């Protein structure tokens, strides 16, 4: 039985073509693409009703108080993103204050205002101008905005008693009643 001397010579190049280095690079590129793909999908999906919101999110208000979302479980939380330079925010500001006053007697509803990419003095002047009394503070490091993936202001989100997202409003409210109804709906009293 004569051996064919050409057989080993044919297999050598194919073995080289798929060396460990090539597999390593291919694997690295695939992992990177997967990470990028997941990131793109998450950004495109955005936040949706029913999504849990991280309880560690904390608001440090302009008057020195601190509100941590995890501590507000059991309460319906309205979160409003606004800015002093935003004209539609000015339109809805009185409605938010009216709705807040409507729920003043209740312990299970709280409003939180977040000044997005705003300067402190302008934000304070805005709150004073519209007589807003519910807790408000800057979105430090835009951490809240990144969690809610906001694309502009005003945007409003309502969390249920379990801390899950229950209602989304992109753009300004047209009247106080719209806000009040949204809250009652989340409270299960609508």
């Amino acid at each position, binding site marked *: 039985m004569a051996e064919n001397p050409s057989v080993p010579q044919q297999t050598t190049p194919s073995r080289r073509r798929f060396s460990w280095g090539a597999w390593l690079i291919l694997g690295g590129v695939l992992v990177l693409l997967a990470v990028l793909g997941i990131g793109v999908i998450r950004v495109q999906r955005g936040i949706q009703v029913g999504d849990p919101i991280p309880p560690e999110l904390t608001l440090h208000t302009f008057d020195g108080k601190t509100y941590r979302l995890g501590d507000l479980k059991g309460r319906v939380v309205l979160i409003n993103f606004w800015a002093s*330079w935003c004209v539609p925010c000015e339109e809805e500001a009185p409605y938010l204050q009216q709705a807040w006053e409507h729920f003043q007697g209740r312990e299970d509803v709280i409003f939180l205002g977040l000044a997005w990419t*705003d300067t402190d003095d302008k934000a304070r002047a805005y709150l004073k101008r519209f007589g807003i009394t519910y807790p408000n503070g800057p979105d430090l490091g*835009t951490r809240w905005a990144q969690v809610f993936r906001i694309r502009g202001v005003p945007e409003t989100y309502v969390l249920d008693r379990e801390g899950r997202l229950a209602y989304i409003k992109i753009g300004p409210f047209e009247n106080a009643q719209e806000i009040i109804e949204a809250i009652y709906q989340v409270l299960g009293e609508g």
Partner: protein
Amino acid sequence: MVMRRWLAMVSFLMLVLSVAPPVRAETPTPLPPPPGTVTDDQVNAVAKKLYCPVCENIPLDTCGTKACEEWRELIRRKLAEGWTEEQILEYFVERYGERVLAQPRPKGVHTLVYVLPPVFIVAGVFILWRTLKTWRTLKGEAEPEAPAVAAQDLPEDPYLRQLEEELRNRL
């Protein structure tokens, strides 16, 4: 009498020197410029290193929105208060997040921005080198192989054998 007068004068001088505040060869700390003296160029030098999240892909020094105007005004105030550029950038990062920086800092995920391009370049050069090496090896192996195989196929007849060889040499 003269000696006494001299002693009194020396004593007086020593007393004055011991009470007088020490003179230091320090350069005086420059006072922060009063408000209004910060120029637009100074503001823009800091602003061009920042991006406002409201207007994507437009640096703060050229953005015309109200939000960016307010940010530039904030930079002007901070400069007037004597803040350094680094302090102002740090303040903006703390307030508005790392994403406001035109040039991300090599921290956390942002490190990838600095690490990945050289890694890709090195990997690309490595792949190119490997490919060229493989081609060269294949070429080197293929050349001696051809006559070896052909030699087996040479005819037994000496005349035909010579003819085949000459034909191959001509080609």
